[in-house]
């Protein structure tokens, strides 16, 4: 009914909690991109020679490529020459030397995300790499990790300390010219996390990277590389926030996961980049390439994502299931409202025998937003006995939003089995009336209904983040019923 829709719209109006700007002097490159900028960047980071070559190669390929237009999103062309490709706190004394010096605002934000930075907040057992604009500012819990043989450090540090590992695996999952934004990232990526879990090691802590865009008119191009050696296990979480600004900002990340025999990676994302205001002004363009290669047999990768932020999200965490019996999972909650646009999903590429994949996608659309699921399930000729299960549910709040599903299935193997289920539902007036008749505040009702809808995905998140994800949805839905 009209009245309830009106209320629902009210409820969805949200406040963005992480919109503050941290006032520190920064060393920021002039806007613009050319080979000199890349040389300067590489030089500043004292990278090995091969890295500069790699970047330049990517840059030259990028110049020849066109911006993709196939996604179900609509935005003005990005002006790449108006973007600055590097920004870092200027004076060394502005860089936190220890955790006590990390900006308290940043610490607070971490706490809100359920990621305590202080060593004394050990109960969560989470090691954190904090990336602030283009640089990693602090990595916690280095010692216990080193003892276990785990390498967890900024990728710029890994390039100096473990160049052979980086050289071997960087670009092995997402080649430099994989796609337009991946090529750009390969050319200009500034920092990100590097993880190596040695053979047979179960990482003693959850690892986490927290990305923060602070400076204006800068792009954030982080690069994450995680290598799980044979028989190892790691659970990794990334969180993201950005200040509220009227201009759109570009975030083009690449994440590569490599899994050897019997290895397991659980990768969870809580993405809460600034989504823009109620009128659709500002917000982050989140164009991300995430891919896992299960090169070893019996390896298993799970992507779990809760996407509530960004003006535009363009993201398909994928699994290349090369090793026999390898398993890929994708659990996703994507919530859009106001004028947000999301085109997200996954690709499950079955190459090895008896590989299996599961896709559970929950899209929630509110306001005037547009939310698309795009998924590819592909079986190569050798994928004997492979199977996929896909479940794709959309929930609409109000009547001005859109939900779309684009499933693609390509099978070159007759023995492969695919199951696909899709549903679309609404937060109905009857459900709202029932909740309110039981004395429940309309806002709380919507968030309860939405949380119920997302339950299958939330249960895949590490405990403490599941609680946070629930809260984040609540905040994101603030103002959706009056």
């Amino acid at each position, binding site marked *: *009914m009209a009245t309830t829709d009106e209320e629902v719209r009210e409820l969805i109006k949200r406040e963005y909690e992480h919109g503050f700007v941290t006032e520190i002097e920064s060393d920021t490159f002039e806007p613009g991109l050319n080979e000199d900028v890349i040389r300067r960047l590489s030089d500043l980071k004292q990278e090995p020679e091969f890295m500069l070559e790699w970047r330049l190669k990517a840059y030259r390929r990028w110049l020849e490529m066109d911006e993709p237009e196939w996604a179900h999103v609509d935005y003005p062309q990005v002006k790449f020459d108006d973007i600055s490709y590097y920004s870092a706190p200027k004076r060394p004394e502005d860089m936190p030397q220890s955790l006590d010096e990390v900006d308290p605002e940043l610490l607070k934000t971490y706490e809100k995300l359920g990621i305590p930075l202080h060593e004394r907040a050990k109960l969560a057992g989470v090691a954190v790499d904090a990336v602030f604009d283009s640089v990693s500012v602090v990595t916690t819990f280095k010692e216990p990790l080193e003892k276990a043989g785990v390498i967890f450090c900024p990728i710029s540090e890994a390039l100096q300390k473990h160049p052979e590992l980086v050289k071997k695996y960087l670009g092995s999952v997402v080649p430099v010219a994989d796609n337009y934004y991946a090529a750009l990232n390969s050319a200009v990526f500034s920092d990100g996390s590097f993880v190596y879990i040695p053979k047979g090691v179960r990482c003693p802590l959850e690892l986490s990277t927290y990305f923060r865009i602070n400076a204006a008119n800068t792009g954030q191009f982080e690069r994450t590389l995680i290598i799980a050696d044979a028989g190892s296990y790691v659970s990794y979480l990334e969180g993201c926030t950005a200040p509220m600004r009227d201009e759109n900002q570009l975030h083009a990340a690449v994440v590569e996961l490599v899994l050897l025999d019997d290895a397991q990676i659980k990768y969870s994302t809580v993405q809460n980049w600034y989504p823009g205001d109620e009128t659709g002004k500002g917000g982050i363009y989140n164009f991300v390439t995430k891919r896992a290669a299960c090169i070893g047999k019996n390896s298993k990768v799970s992507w779990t994502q809760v996407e509530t932020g960004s003006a535009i999200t363009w993201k398909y965490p994928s699994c290349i299931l090369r090793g026999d019996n390898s398993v890929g999972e994708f659990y996703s909650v994507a919530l859009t409202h106001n004028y947000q646009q999301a085109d997200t999903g996954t690709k499950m590429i079955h190459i090895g025998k008896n590989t299996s994949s599961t896709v559970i996608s929950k899209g929630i659309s509110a306001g005037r937003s547009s939310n698309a699921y795009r998924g590819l399930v592909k079986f190569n000729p050798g994928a004997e006995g492979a199977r996929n299960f896909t479940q794709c549910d959309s929930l609409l709040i109000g009547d001005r939003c859109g939900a779309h599903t684009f499933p693609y299935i390509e099978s070159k193997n007759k023995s492969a089995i695919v199951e696909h289920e899709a549903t679309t539902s609404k937060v109905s007036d009857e*459900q709202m*009336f*029932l909740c309110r008749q*039981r004395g429940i505040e309309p806002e709380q009702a919507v968030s*309860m209904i939405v949380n*119920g*809808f*997302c339950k299958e995905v939330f249960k895949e998140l590490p405990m403490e983040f599941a609680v946070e994800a629930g809260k984040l949805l609540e905040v994101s839905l603030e103002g959706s019923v009056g």
Partner: protein
Amino acid sequence: MLSIKNLHACVENKQILNGLNLEIKAGEVHAIMGPNGSGKSTLSQVLAGNEAFDVTAGEVTFNGDNLLDLATEERAREGIFLAFQYPVEIPGVSNLQFLRTSVNAMRKHHGIEDMNAAEFMKLAKEVSKQVDLDPAFLKRGVNEGFSGGEKKRNEVMQALLLQPKLAILDETDSGLDIDALKVVADGVNALRASDRAILMITHYQRLLDHIVPDYVHVLSEGKIIRSGGPELALELEAKGYGWLGIEDQAAANHG
């Protein structure tokens, strides 16, 4: 407790209630009977504050307050409870979570602190046993995959849990077999109290064998056309609605 004067209401521009009057005092049990389509559910929805229905004239006071000024959730917190004729499902939200949120919303309104999970669990188990529902139902999604009878018992269970001032039961008896009817009736009888009123809406007389009302009203075309004691229900049962010169819409349609 509840005073309805000259109530007119419509839904989607269709006039349904046409000048309904009703007085209910604390401690009383009233039954409203009437053919399908006569406006019984509309009355219950209007009292509970469903915004799909527009009140076009008349007034309703509840313990002296103008009920029509209050939002749905405010009415609920003031003690109006509606057992739905068609309870809706909320997938993924456990009954337990839903009910605890409800109980705590009511408590907050009355300045009482939240009930903790353990305390609530104990209470919820007790009331679910009272309506013969396996406590396992508490873990299931709200009405998710419940049979018709289970949904109705779940509604009565909620009334027992929330202890409202005015419980409106909309055809809580329909679709129940004899045993389930007995369970539901026992639950409703357990609700009877000197400080509580019950408004039972029913199409059939049989529920009234188990729950003997103080007053029976017959609703036709959005108006109460006859009121009396329990004997009115028996008379209706024996003679049919035609006796009062009204047509049973359902009987006519299905007949």
